[in-house]
């Protein structure tokens, strides 16, 4: 129990420090503008709107849509290569440890109100939504229509929270330009906030295209989960500890696992591990 608490504290600290460091352009908050230095050429690994007044790096999902939509039919080698590198190193470990919006949802989930258990069939179906977001709104539409960043424009609550609200509050010119689109995005953010109080990380589970991209690398990434069947006593402590509803015994490297490590701390027999190139060295198709 002490292990789980300590592990949770360490992860929250890493998430918070990462969020502060990557959003530390204080002048942006003071003046209602954004950072425009050379660091903006580089993407951060997690969801982080580049129009946040404090943001030092570029949002990978925004950058992907900008390149696919703005270079007239050219492929996005730089952003996809960068995202693939991050995915191959860590998979969804990024979601669990280096995403500020993930931390935001986790803090909302701490509000002491009754929690909702999404029925299994609905939960399973909704999880495919994030792949639709990735392939349709982030890749296919911007690429095919050479235009708008559809996910950012019509869906992304991260942009509204980190960019829209602070900029509108700080910048009079932007405040006067608010219209229907802002209200729609604000409504989606409120929906996301309310559902986060009752469901653990709903945006990450069902909507996030970046999580969907990293999920593709879960089984081949350098950082991964391992399971030792000989040590396991089938007590179910790991599955009970998992807030993402993964059973680490059946699928230690499930596409839904954000590698928070809580199952590892919960295991009384150290049958689970999280580390670099842990587990089987053979490619094994895990059953969902």
């Amino acid at each position, binding site marked *: 129990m002490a292990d789980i608490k300590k592990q949770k504290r360490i992860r929250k600290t890493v998430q918070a420090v990462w969020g502060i460091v990557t959003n530390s352009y204080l002048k942006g908050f003071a003046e209602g*503008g*954004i*950072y*425009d*230095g*050379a660091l*903006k*050429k580089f*993407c951060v690994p997690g969801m982080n*709107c*580049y*129009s946040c007044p404090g943001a030092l*790096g*570029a*949002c990978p999902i*925004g*950058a992907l849509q*900008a*390149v696919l939509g*703005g*270079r007239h039919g*050219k492929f*996005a*080698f*730089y*952003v*996809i*290569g*960068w995202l*693939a*590198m991050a995915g*191959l*190193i860590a998979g969804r470990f990024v979601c669990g440890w280096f995403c500020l919006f993930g931390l935001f949802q986790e803090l909302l989930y701490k509000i002491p109100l009754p929690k909702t258990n999404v029925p299994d069939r609905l939960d399973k179906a909704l999880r495919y939504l994030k792949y639709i977001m990735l392939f349709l709104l982030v890749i296919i539409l911007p690429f095919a229509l050479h235009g*708008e*960043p559809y996910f*950012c*424009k019509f869906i*992304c609550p991260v*942009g*509204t929270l980190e*960019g*829209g609200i602070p*900029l*509108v509050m700080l910048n009079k010119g*932007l405040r006067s*330009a*608010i*219209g229907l*689109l*802002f209200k*729609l995005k*604000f409504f989606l953010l409120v929906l996301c906030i309310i559902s986060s109080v009752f469901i653990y990380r709903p945006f990450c589970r069902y909507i996030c295209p970046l999580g969907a991209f990293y999920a593709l690398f879960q089984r*081949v*990434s*350098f950082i991964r989960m391992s399971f030792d069947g000989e040590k396991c006593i089938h007590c179910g402590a790991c599955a009970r500890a998992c807030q993402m509803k993964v059973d680490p015994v059946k699928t230690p490297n499930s596409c839904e696992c954000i590698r928070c490590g809580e199952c590892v701390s919960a295991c009384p027999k150290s049958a689970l591990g999280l580390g670099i*190139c842990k587990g*089987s*060295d*053979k*490619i094994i198709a895990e059953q969902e």
Partner: protein
Amino acid sequence: MTNKKLTAVLFVAAALMCLYGAYSGETETVYQKAANICMECIGIG
């Protein structure tokens, strides 16, 4: 092929993609978008 070797091969391919993209000027497109307020992202444009 073992998992480690596959990961290493894919990683090298991804790194080469990233370098080629940077060489062909994609970083400038990313910079242009990221260094200016993205009206679509904040719900205004």
